[in-house]
């Protein structure tokens, strides 16, 4: 009753406001068109062509400018009209459903199991979709790539999302993991299954190593030091040729075995042991499930940690360090464990990367990788596990999608390569995100305890 009357009271006001504002909208749109005109005069209005002789000639393109201004005018007007309508509806909706659970919680309940189901059955789906396991290889490879980034995103989420420590050099730990497997396997001949935990341990040790000097830093200062740390690791790998092979990297890294059974064609290989006909796809599918398990372990550990005192201390640390200390929380230990655990998962992912590629070089661990992983965490919504997974799918999957938009060649001509517009679209997506969802795709933080659940 009360809610209904409120809507009744609000709706006419909004309607009147948007109605009265139509001339204002026209004026606003005209202003936009004027700005477009000003911007396009130096950029669009003249084209330089090779004239007769040696000089350049200016060709006027005033038709294009007029078209641009008109388009901006129409688009702006449309946007104002549409947004007014959307805002009014949203207001009415908000009033009507003030008590409904947050969107994120409802979306998570459906989306999370769905994503997991697709992830679990992806090799099967790929095989069915493209008519054979080998034909579906592209999709499985893409799945492996995405899952690697999901895992890295979840790992960095511990440091950035939960503990609130901005780390721009996360890729350093990824590199430590990759090189520790590469070196241990090629020099000492250790198997992947021994190297995996070792790689995690090494990376965690490096996490603590980075953690100590930056304990007193926060925000911008921390970001710069971690950025430098990432670069130092990369430069050491490039320049310490005797140790790491320098810029040429390390190659012929042994491949993963099925718990000791190699994926080879001959006697004693995976196929003959299990009575299957040999296919190189067995290894790919195995790698897919390996990274899926690693990523899920990362997720489960994070979810579990959030309910433990230590994980809760991470979140409290992000909120207020001084309050933490006055409640008897050792902030030094809390930060170091966050760095160490986050780094450990990067180490796991790194050794997976090495075993999958069979080749590592410093070029794979440049700053852009750190930036992409961080973008995944920020876009996903700091601290949200599902958000990070979705962001990784979008960030890594979308460029691949772009590569496949060959039909656009029919529109823009043969020379059009959609992939060249990758960074442009990426930037555009970033701007849109920051305008509409500034706190990430899933910005609602789920409490670690709720009424009804047992208090830990």
């Amino acid at each position, binding site marked *: 009753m009360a809610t209904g009357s409120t809507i009744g009271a609000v709706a006419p006001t909004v309607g009147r406001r948007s109605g009265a504002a139509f001339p204002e909208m026209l004026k606003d749109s005209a202003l936009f068109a004027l700005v477009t005109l000003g911007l396009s005069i130096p950029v669009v209005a003249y084209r330089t062509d090779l004239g007769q002789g040696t000089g350049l000639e200016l060709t006027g393109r005033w038709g294009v400018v007029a078209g641009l201004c008109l388009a901006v005018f129409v688009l702006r007007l449309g946007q104002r009209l549409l947004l007014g309508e959307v805002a009014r509806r949203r207001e009415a909706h908000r009033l009507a459903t003030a008590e409904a659970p947050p969107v994120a919680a409802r979306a998570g309940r459906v989306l999370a199991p769905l994503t997991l189901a697709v992830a679990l059955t992806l090799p099967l789906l790929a095989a069915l979709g493209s008519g054979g396991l080998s034909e579906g290889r592209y999709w499985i490879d893409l799945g492996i790539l995405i899952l690697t980034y999901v895992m890295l995103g979840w790992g960095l989420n511990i440091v950035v999302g939960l503990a609130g420590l901005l780390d721009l050099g996360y890729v350093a730990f990824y590199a430590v993991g990759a090189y520790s497997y590469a070196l241990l396997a090629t020099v000492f001949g250790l198997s992947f299954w021994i190297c995996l935990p070792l790689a995690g341990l090494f990376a965690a040790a490096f996490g603590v190593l980075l953690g100590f000097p930056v304990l007193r830093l926060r925000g911008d200062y921390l970001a710069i030091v971690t950025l430098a740390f990432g670069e130092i690791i990369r430069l050491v790998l490039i320049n310490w040729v005797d140790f790491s092979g320098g810029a040429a990297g390390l190659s012929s890294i042994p491949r993963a075995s099925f718990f000791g059974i190699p994926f080879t064609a001959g006697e004693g290989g995976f196929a003959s042991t299990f009575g299957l006909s040999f296919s190189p796809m067995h290894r790919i599918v195995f790698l897919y499930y390996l990274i899926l398990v690693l990523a899920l372990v990362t997720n489960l550990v994070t979810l579990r940690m959030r309910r433990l005192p230590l994980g*809760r201390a991470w979140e409290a640390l992000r909120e*207020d360090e001084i309050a933490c200390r006055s409640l008897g*929380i050792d902030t030094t230990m809390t930060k170091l464990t966050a760095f160490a655990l986050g780094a450990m998962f990067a180490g796991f992912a790194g050794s997976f990367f090495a075993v999958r590629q069979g080749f590592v070089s410093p070029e794979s661990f440049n700053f852009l990788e750190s930036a992409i992983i961080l973008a995944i965490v920020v876009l996903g919504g700091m601290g949200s596990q599902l958000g990070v997974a979705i962001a990784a799918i979008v960030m890594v999957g979308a460029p691949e999608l772009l590569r496949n938009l060959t039909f656009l060649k029919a529109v823009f001509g043969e020379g059009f390569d959609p992939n060249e517009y990758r960074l442009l679209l990426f930037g555009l997506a970033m701007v849109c995100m920051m305008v509409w969802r500034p706190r990430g795709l899933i910005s609602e*933080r789920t409490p670690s305890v709720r009424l009804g659940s047992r*208090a830990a």
Partner: protein
Amino acid sequence: MSVAGINVLVDETRARTEAAKAPLLSVRGVSAYYGSIRALKGVDVDVHEGEIVALIGANGAGKSTLMMTIFGQPQAREGTITFAGQDITRLPTHEIARLNLAQSPEGRRIFSRMTVRENLQMGAAVNGGKHFAEDLERMCVLFPRLRERIDQRGGTMSGGEQQMLAIARALMSRPRLLMLDEPSLGLAPLVVKQIFSAVRDLNAREGLTVFIVEQNAYHALKLAHRGYVMVTGAVTMSGTGQALLDDPQVKAAYLEGGSH
């Protein structure tokens, strides 16, 4: 039976008189600096078991600095601070907090994205959450508003509720001494009254020792057994709460116009 009872009584009395002799918290000649600026100039303050002690003074007198110095940030450059017989002058903040000494810091500093329950869990982190359910219930009785808001995010509550949460969070560690820094700051008079009466109750029923730093001199001195007045980094006056309330100097400096 009766002899044993008397013995226990005697023991208790002796323990109590000993406690009365040695204050629970003792600040002796403490000086603290921000860079080269001397913010505290040889401060002496005692808080005995079972007392409510108020520290009043104007803006910038060093009240909060004293509170923070007791908690080790900044550390005292001169003088000693002892709590329950232990020298805590050089201990880091988190170790001081583990000694049954709890603080509701200035500006409340609750964890705004965490729920009320999670905030209280953080308060119980010191003792590993052993009596969590029991203490949670105690806090909900003390501040019924917290029960209503138990699964709400701390940052979405009103200032008064946040202050209640800050005090409740500090109490979750079952402290022997509760230190409150400006609990009335920015709150409506009615809410201030609620919070102060909760503190008085805790002191009367559970014998909780309270050290309170306040600008709201009238309410603080009404509440306190004893009080100290601080001016530019030094304690200039001390006495019982009522004596200070009646003192013409205190009246002129802190109460006239500021109270009823």
